[in-house]
């Protein structure tokens, strides 16, 4: 009976076999938790920022782009299921952010204050490029942030193409959030004890 269970498991779900170490498997929920709590924290302080990708950034830096991508994905799924169902679709954006942060970090684009700025712009661009079609499909191009949407309304009121208007709306908001989160991640990573960095590196 049990043997049978294992057999069917192996044959039916091979496609789900991802090579994730146990360290990464525990890092990802922690990163998602940090996203969640950081977002709530920023809301509690009434800051005009989301900070909801901080954990994703750190997971990418500690355990590579795959870990970051999965953190971002699960983050939006959980967030979508519990708080705002529509944000589930933005999981695609979060996956991309995880990958871009991981790649940039590995290439050394998080090594000093100047380079972090370049990284942040690239991340914001990625985020905006992927989010814009989703905004258009779901919200007719809006983002849901009042002053971003005011910009959007002004632009399409002046007959500017909806795609350009929507992209501008999203990018303006993204650039601020992504720059702040990139610098937070940069400072926090520098503060992490070496044993912690080594543990996740050794156990990938």
């Amino acid at each position: 009976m049990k043997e049978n269970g294992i057999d069917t498991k192996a044959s039916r779900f091979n496609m789900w076999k991802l090579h994730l170490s146990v360290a990464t498997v525990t890092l990802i929920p922690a990163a998602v938790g940090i996203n969640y709590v950081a977002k709530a924290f920023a809301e509690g302080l009434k800051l005009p920022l989301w900070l909801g990708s901080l954990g994703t950034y750190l997971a990418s830096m500690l355990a590579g782009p795959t870990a970051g991508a999965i953190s971002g994905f699960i983050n939006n799924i959980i967030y979508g299921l519990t708080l705002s169902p529509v944000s589930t679709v933005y999981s695609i954006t979060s996956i991309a952010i995880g990958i871009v942060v991981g790649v940039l970090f590995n290439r050394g684009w998080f090594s000093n204050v100047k380079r972090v700025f370049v990284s942040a712009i690239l991340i914001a661009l990625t985020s905006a490029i992927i989010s814009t079609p989703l905004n258009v499909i779901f919200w007719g191009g809006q983002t849901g942030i009042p002053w971003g949407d005011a910009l959007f309304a002004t632009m399409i009121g002046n007959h500017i193409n909806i795609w350009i208007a929507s992209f501008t709306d999203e990018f303006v908001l993204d650039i601020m959030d992504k720059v702040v989160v990139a610098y937070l991640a940069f400072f926090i990573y520098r503060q992490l004890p070496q044993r912690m960095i080594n543990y996740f590196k050794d156990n990938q």
Partner: protein
Amino acid sequence: MTAIQLNDVSYHYPTSDFKLTIDQLTMTANLVAIVGQNGAGKSTLFKLLTGLMQPQTGNILINHHDLADLSPADRLKTIGIVFQDPSSQLFNATVEKEVAWSLSQTESDAAVIAEKVAQVLATVGLTDIKDKNPFDLSMPEKKLLSIATVLAVDPQIYLFDEPMISLDWPSQQLVTRLMQQLAREKHQVIAITHDMDWLAATFSKIAVLSDGEIKFEGAPAALFGQPELVHAVGLLPPRIMSIVSDVLGDSRVYLTPADYVAKHQTH
């Protein structure tokens, strides 16, 4: 001399039945311990004493001024708190900066800060590792560092939450000496502890909490002279008392092995 006075203080959490009620508690002795079982109200009382949480009724007076009226800066100069878990408070890049940060909340002169930081690091024995990342320290070192951040500010009142936990023997000795030194310098030192041996050896006054009420106030010897009370509030007598009663059948009060020796070498 700093005096803390609690009048008709009560506090209850919206989500539980627990209620802390203290009609009258005055702390003027220099070393005061607050003891009691888990859930007796120690942490609630502690949080009220920090001034960061206000009682629902009554007030807490410090030298006749209401604690609730203190400005944040005055509060820092009045009450310093050493929490049980030091890793909840550390965030600076080095041990030295961690201490300097605390002091910079009440002091702006850089030269004064530098001098004071060097002095307190020497007091707790962390001078050699002042450039280390606080998160690379051992648990006792982290705890000493968190104590140093409070020492630097030099408040009138020191609150210690379970100071002996996660310290090794030499650092326990160091922290005990420090607390005694502070008390001699006329600071009010209040500690929550469940270490009865340390309590019996160190403190001059104990307040015992049980079910959110003060059940005893007085010297350790007086408390442990009432075995029924000690049992009723869920405490244990100091180890030396159970050793002596176990082996010698002597159920009198002894606070430490040295106390026993002193009482028995005089005859």
